[in-house]
Each structure stands twice: as structure tokens, then as C-alpha cells.
């Protein structure tokens, strides 16, 4: 996958140029926009793209890269994806996928 490749090249980058840590980070941030690969799926709960931090996390001004990492994506067995933050709030109300109404169970989590 694209991200792994990128990871490698970055590590190489870092080794060649250890003093330039800040630079590498910035580069990473730009590369993190690889959402073209996964399509621009929008979280149907908060209506923000799942690859971005959810509306709540954004409101809590988790603007920087490290904080965004906490706001992960969750895929259900039905293959619908949401922010984990959004979905964990909803399942407290009703343990169904809000899109297809199937019983909600997590298939995988991540970014």
C-alpha cells in the first residue's frame, strides 16, 4: 500500500538527514492526504470525511497531526465506515448501522 512505501522512504530520508526531523514531519503531513486511494468516504454521522478527524474532535481543536491519529475509522461487518468517535456514541443509542440498519459489529479499525 502507498502508506507503507511512503513510510520506508521516510525512514530512509530520516537516516540520510537526521538533523532535519521537522522537515520530515511536514512531508508526512502532506502525504497523509492519500485519501484518493480510499475514496472520499464521508462519515454519515458527522458528515466529515472519515480520513479527517470527526466533527467532535475538530471542535475540540485537535488540529495537529498527532491528535488526529486518535480519531480512527471503524468498519462494520456491513462494510460501512464511520469515525470511531461518532459510532461509539451512536451504538449507545441503538446498536445498528445507521446506514443499513443491520446489527452493528466491528470488522476492523484503523486509518
Amino acid at each position, binding site marked *: 500500500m502507498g502508506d507503507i512505501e511512503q513510510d520506508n522512504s521516510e525512514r530512509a530520508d530520516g537516516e540520510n538527514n537526521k538533523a532535519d526531523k521537522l522537515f520530515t514531519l511536514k512531508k508526512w503531513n502532506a502525504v497523509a492526504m492519500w485519501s484518493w486511494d480510499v475514496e472520499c468516504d464521508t462519515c454519515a454521522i458527522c458528515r466529515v470525511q472519515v480520513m479527517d478527524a470527526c*466533527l467532535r474532535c475538530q471542535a*475540540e481543536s485537535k488540529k495537529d497531526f498527532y491528535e488526529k491519529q486518535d480519531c480512527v475509522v471503524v468498519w462494520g461487518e456491513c462494510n460501512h465506515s464511520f469515525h470511531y468517535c461518532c459510532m461509539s456514541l*451512536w451504538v*449507545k*443509542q*441503538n446498536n*445498528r448501522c*445507521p*446506514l443499513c440498519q443491520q446489527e452493528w459489529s466491528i470488522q476492523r479499525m484503523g486509518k
Partner: protein
Amino acid sequence: MITLRGKLKKDPDVSNSKSQNIPSKRVSIRDKLLIKEAQEMEQTLPMTCQVTFNDPHCLYEFTLLIIPDEGYWCGGHFYFQINVPEEYNMIPPRVKCLTKLWHPNISEEGDVCLSILRQNSVDGMGWAPTRKLKDVVWGLSSLFTDLLNFDDPLNREAADLFSKDKELFGIKVKEYLIQFAKR
């Protein structure tokens, strides 16, 4: 840079507003969602509906006027008060009918029975955070036409009368309409 982030993380202001429900200057999630939803609702408003925001700064409180152009309630003016709770869109808007009417799914006290407004439903027809204000408006306007449901009535008397005598039902609806829903 990292030290600065560490400090920001421990900022008492940030952690406070997270753990407690103090109304803050910050725009709430509900209000953020409503900015788009209110706009979308107005753009897709059915011909029979009018929306009035009592306070243009409060998108979470508004009145919906429905003037059905067909069916038993044709020509009546039916007002609904819609309140969107702070926990939106995890929980549905609260709807009250302000106009007294004779309707199987709306009680004379103004309680409304509409599936998408139900918080807990086992049939999957209830509220979901994927629904928006425009769906609520369309649902309410359909109560006067196609969503009319006699199986699970709030006004049993009205539902019973409909199944027994549609003509009498129509007369009773008109009586209420003339008395309470002329404008």
C-alpha cells in the same frame, strides 16, 4: 514543538470543556450540523410547508407550518414546534403540534407519532443520525397524505372512526379544521 504540544494537551481549559457539559463559547456539534441542515431544509421545502425561525441565531428552534393541498386536511393551517436537543444528531428533534386537529397519528394534545422521530426502535424505522431536518419536514408533511397510518394510532377514536365511516371521519376532520386550523 513537542513540548508545546504537551502543554497544550494539559491545558485546563481544554480538559474541562471535554469532561463537563458547561455551555461554552464554542459552537456545539448540533449547531455545526444545523448550519448545513437548516439551509438544506429550506432549499428542499415541500410546496405545502413554511419554516419560521423565531430567532435567526437559534437554528435549533423553529416553527413549521403545513398547509396540505390535498386529502382530508386540505387547506388547514397546521403549526408544529420543532426543538432540536443539544445531543442532536444522536437523538431526534422533538416535535409538538401546536394546532388542535383530528388525526389518527397526532393526539389532540399535540403529540406526534412519526416513526423517524422515535429514539428507540427495533424495526430500523426510527431515528438515525443519518437523518436530517429535511427528512423530518418531509415526514411531517406526509402525515397529511401518504404516511397516514391507522395501525398504530395516537388518536384511537380517530382511527376507529376512519375504519367505520370515512365520510363521518372526513366531516369530523373538517369541523376541527374550521374551528382550529383556519390560519
